């Protein structure tokens, strides 16, 4: 016969008595008052429920009468229950949680899995999911996005119709080079966002008036268009949405609810990862543009020229005189940026055929 010490709660009132459990032959449990040895309850092992061990928290053994026997005599209890199949599985979890080597293995595995999931798993899943869905799924969302932008920051384009037509005419050769992608062009006044162009999942590519004005050569705009078509062709918009959902899911999965931490800071890892994904997309679109420019025999430096002009223009507007060299500060800033560092982008679009500043002197 084995004995466990603990407390008996009858389940009818909050009153409790010190008690001992006598277990004979590992089948029959008798709960006795610890002082006067009055019989409080009796049950066979098959009818009682022993919860698994969690740290050193007390365990409440449930009896069929509704009473509970509380004990912290974990080793003795697990020794008693050890022969039962169901308890072997429960003890396994505690064994995992209590052995340093297992915990270390779990830690390394989890970190590896999270890293691989964030680095490769999420983008790959989003990519295949985005290509499985019909392209039209983004139409409604895109329409709403434009409507929202029109209400908030964008204003109707102030370009003359003649100018718009001319631009569209130039673009036809780019369109015909990508027959699989359904594109339509929209013009707006950018206002606060300045010289910009962006693609929506539906295939709408929006140019701001400022961007058109800043361009000095029609091939510069064609290069930008090719970059934006790259976003549409690779379904970056959809992939971004799917990636965001997956990331949020991972964070909730790991932390549950993160009380005890200022929650605004909890979104930091998500933002940083999203930005990294975004930079990846920009590189993909840049590559797409380079491939097109090479095929169409347009000098790569057209894109570089426009990029640099936008950068100079932006800096002159914000009051900074010189583009900063990549100092430590700039590198920190890079992690928060949606686009790769402009200098390194420009470096990939070096070629002959443009004006002095951007390419090898043409004389």
């Amino acid at each position, binding site marked *: 016969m084995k004995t466990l010490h603990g407390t008996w709660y009858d389940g009818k009132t909050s009153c409790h008595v010190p008690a001992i459990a006598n277990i004979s032959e590992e089948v029959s449990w008798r709960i006795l008052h610890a002082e006067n040895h009055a019989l409080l309850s009796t049950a066979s092992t098959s009818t009682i429920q022993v*919860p698994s061990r969690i740290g050193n928290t007390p365990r409440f053994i449930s009896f069929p009468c509704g009473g509970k026997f509380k004990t912290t005599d974990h080793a003795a209890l697990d020794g008693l229950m050890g022969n039962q199949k169901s308890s072997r599985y429960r003890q396994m979890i505690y064994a995992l949680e209590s052995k340093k080597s297992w915990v270390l293995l779990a830690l390394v595995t989890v970190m590896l899995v999270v890293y691989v999931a964030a680095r490769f798993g999420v983008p790959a899943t989003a990519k295949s999911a985005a290509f499985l869905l019909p392209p039209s799924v983004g139409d409604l969302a895109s329409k709403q996005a434009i409507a929202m932008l029109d209400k908030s920051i964008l204003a109707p384009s102030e370009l003359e119709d003649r100018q718009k037509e001319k631009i569209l005419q130039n673009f036809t050769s780019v369109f015909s080079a990508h027959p699989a992608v359904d594109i339509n062009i929209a013009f707006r006044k950018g206002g606060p966002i300045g010289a910009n162009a962006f693609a929506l999942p539906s295939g709408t590519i929006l140019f701001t008036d400022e961007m058109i004005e800043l361009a000095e050569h029609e091939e510069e705009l064609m290069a930008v268009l090719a970059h934006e078509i790259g976003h549409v062709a690779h379904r970056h918009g959809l992939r971004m949405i799917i990636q965001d959902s997956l990331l949020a899911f991972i964070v909730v999965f790991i932390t549950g609810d993160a009380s005890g931490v200022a929650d605004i800071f909890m979104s930091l890892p998500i933002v940083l990862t999203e930005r990294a994904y975004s930079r990846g997309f920009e590189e993909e679109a840049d590559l797409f543009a380079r491939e097109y420019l090479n095929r169409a025999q347009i000098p790569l430096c057209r894109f570089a020229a426009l990029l640099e002009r936008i950068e100079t223009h932006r800096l002159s507007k914000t009051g900074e005189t010189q583009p900063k060299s990549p100092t430590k500060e700039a590198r920190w800033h890079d992690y928060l940026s949606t686009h790769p560092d402009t200098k390194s982008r420009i470096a990939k679009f070096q070629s002959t055929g443009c004006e002095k500043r951007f390419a090898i002197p043409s004389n």
Partner: protein
Amino acid sequence: MSITAYRVVYQGEVLEGFTLDQVKKAVAKLFNLGKEKVDKLFGSHRIIIKSNIQKKKADYYRQQLSKAGARVYVEKIPSSDVAVDDPSTIIEEIDRAAPLRNAMAKAASAKSIAAEKVMSGTTSLEKHPVAFKFSGNGAEYFKIWIVNILLSIITIGIYSAWAKVRTRRYFYGNTAIDGASFDYQASPTAILKGRLIAVAFFMAYSLASNYAPLVGIALMLLFSTLMPWLVVRSLSFNARMSAYKNIRFGFDGRIGEAAKAFLLWPFLAVLTLGILSPYAFYRQQRFIVSNSRYGTTSFRFSATPGPYYAMFFMVTLIAIGGVALVASLVPFFGPAAVLLGAIFYLFIFAYFNVRMINLRYNHAHLAQHHFVSRLEISSYAMLILTNTLGMVLTLGLFYPWAQVRTAQYKISRLQFQTAGNLDTFVAAQEKQVSALGQEIGDVFDIEIGL
């Protein structure tokens, strides 16, 4: 004297679960009565056990006697009766009953001071504090946490229900008062079921809101209509699965009331441009606390809207002041001013949480007992700051320590002001509640919780 007097009356009734013989023996032992007196007591149709006493004292007798299995009634003595009422019924024996005093002292050693005072008749029940204790530690919880995540990953999320139960059990089991810990009894399969439905709904919603916003809005409306039901289900599941001394908690809030607290009042708050939002918040707190119960004993919420208005006013004031200050400093200090903004954010976060938690507990009563919560803004802000820094510097691995530190802080500053015995709470008969409400609530991040 205008003080109302009470008497304790016995009419020969025995509580469920006791036999007459058991009760006779217990009462005899309690009051040190001979067989003759006990027979007289149990033989009479109606007998006054004690008269001309205050309400608290009468309640105390009722508690002790119901523990022994006798159903007694506390009655107000009609003023015309006071003079006539015979003060020397059985009380003389009772007051001299030394064994009773001993029995009481043994049964409720922690409360013996109050019990002695009552028994010796010097004063009415005095309250004395019993502290909550939290005994978990970060390293221990880290192990549980990391294994939870690993097994959840391996089982593609299925284990997360078990993980949730283990986490809850760890925190409940390490929270103790009066030598007894809390117990979380939910079954993981119930949580898994609720979780699967919740995740399906969430996925439908997020897909719909991205690709078909109208369907998303329809789902959101459906969710809002269901919300009062979800709130009630969530609170009652949570309460029912929580137990202390093998007596479960419960939640009896009605869906109509939940609709008022979580839909009507917030809606009116929006209509009044926020003037009613502290009141809406107060109504939600009141709904949660006053509908909760421990066994058959209901919680009572004694707060008024006033402090909630003061709290919201301060938060608004600090927020406006902070934004103005940061905005005016940005041109001079640049990014350093943004850091100041972060400090303001932290302060507001701490202020709101501290005030909210203190208000909730300091106005929560259970029978004649009540809670005292003493969180402080400065120490709580330091806790949050260090937790957040820890999380950032360790890429999130500090999370278990942050959780344990927060629990430790909150629980160690919580007290239960007891008046009399904590052993007399009675369990209630209850029906099953599924985990669905709670899980949907969790996925959609509704702020509820006690």
